[in-house]
């Protein structure tokens, strides 16, 4: 049975089983409750042909990427400062540990009031979803820099600023990378929630709006699109980490395969 051990064979078998199970569900419960793979593909084609799917994916991706990049750009320096400066950490840590338990979705209404119904409120929400994860990971990274590294840099004449730039930041990169990568996941969760409640475009809007037409097949299309969007952005980011940041010890899932 050696052919089963081949990776592509086992993976294809797995997906075939999933499709089969899915189709089985569709037969048992009917297409209104569970649209089968074929019905979903048909619904997807419909949405692709009138252009809405591509447009919605584009809009959601745009919101996620902008908010995620801006949130990370704010969070990384903040995490470095909180980790490096004891006084700041003393004040910031309880606050961080309080607010990080408030999920982004809970802020939607408030952000609509503060930033309006347009793009700003959605991007602000993604920034919120990104910020705390990245700050906490960066902070942990700064705290885990070995004392010997800092000491050796100092005795080789490095200034405090040089220590931050040439020792603390490079040591912290794997932590920052993990934080930013995890934040991608929460960003998707936040944007879908926001688009369901207050938007007239985007994948979240598609999923929410399809209920009005009782188009469960469109809901399935939306769900599958989300899966693909997350999967591909994560792969691209992981690839970037391996190619550009390998010397800092960034490991990503695919690297383990060798």
């Amino acid at each position: 049975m050696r052919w089963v051990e081949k990776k592509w064979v086992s993976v294809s078998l797995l997906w075939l089983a999933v499709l089969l199970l899915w189709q089985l569900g569709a037969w048992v419960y009917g297409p209104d409750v569970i649209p089968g793979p074929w019905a979903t593909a048909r619904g997807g084609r419909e949405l692709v042909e009138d252009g809405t799917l591509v447009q919605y994916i584009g809009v959601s991706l745009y919101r996620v990427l902008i908010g995620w990049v801006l949130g990370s750009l704010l969070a990384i320096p903040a995490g470095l400062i909180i980790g490096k400066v004891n006084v700041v950490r003393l004040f910031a840590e309880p606050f961080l540990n309080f607010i990080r338990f408030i999920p982004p979705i809970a802020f939607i209404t408030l952000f609509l009031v503060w930033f309006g119904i347009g793009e700003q409120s959605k991007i602000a929400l993604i920034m919120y979803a990104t910020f705390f994860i990245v700050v906490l990971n960066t902070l942990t990274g700064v705290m885990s820099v070995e004392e010997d590294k800092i000491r050796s840099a100092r005795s080789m004449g490095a200034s405090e600023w040089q220590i931050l730039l040439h020792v603390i930041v490079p040591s912290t990169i794997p932590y920052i990378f993990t934080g930013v990568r995890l934040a991608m996941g929460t960003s998707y969760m936040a944007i879908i929630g926001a688009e369901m409640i207050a938007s007239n475009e985007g994948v979240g809007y598609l999923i929410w709006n399809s209920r009005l037409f009782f188009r469960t097949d469109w809901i399935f299309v939306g769900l599958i699109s989300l899966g693909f969007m997350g999967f591909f952005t994560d792969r691209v980011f992981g690839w970037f980490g391996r190619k550009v940041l390998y010397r800092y010890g960034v490991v990503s899932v695919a690297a383990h395969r060798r």
Partner: protein
Amino acid sequence: MSLSAKPAARQHAIHIEQLRKSYSEPAAGDVHYIIKDVDLVIKGGEFFVLLGPSGCGKSTLLNMIAGFVSKSGGHLRVDNIEVDKPGRDRAVVFQQADSSLFPWLTVRENVEFGLRMKKVAKAERQSLSSRYIKLVGLDGHEDKFPKALSGGMKQRVQLARVLANDPAILLMDEPFGALDAMTRRTMQKELVQIWRETHKTVIFVTHDIQEALLLGERIGIMSVGPSSNITDIYDNTLPFPRDVASPEFYALYSRIQSHFEE
């Protein structure tokens, strides 16, 4: 090699008087000292070994000379200047290469670190790093990352990295403690060689009597803590390279051994 053969190294003497370290507040009454009333003079260019059991405060003393740990009393002067912070004149070779080397830099980049911080021009940096990489026998490994090196090679990188900054004093905290016995012997021989070529002042911390005798011109014995102190100093005038099997070596070994047998 006698001391008079290297007059240039006469400077950078270390003067320690009544030095003490405690982490408890002086006002608390019952003060617990890690080291107490240490008196020691180390001559420039000397190879001095601090020998003592684990936990006797020898690393604390070394870290105080390095400027990493502040003193609670007494004096600690290098070149008649009171030590209160780390400085380029005192380089530290740590016990754990993994925690002190920069894994994101190659061997060459690690060795050039101090020079880069000092903003030395690239060409000069390269020629200096090449020289010290060669001195520690790592030529051909310049572009490797530390994780691709063995334990002994990593310690060589540490050594080259500090030597590239041309410090007057080398502070070594059990640098060969984590190496296997064979690598350790080689490293000890090469360290003596490098010391004799570079005329650095070396303070070497160890708990291994044989290592102390193989390396040191003088060996300071530290008592078991708390309030530990340098109780005896042995002169070791045996010629280099030293022969572990010689009767003189054995005689000195037994004398020092007797200190730790109470």
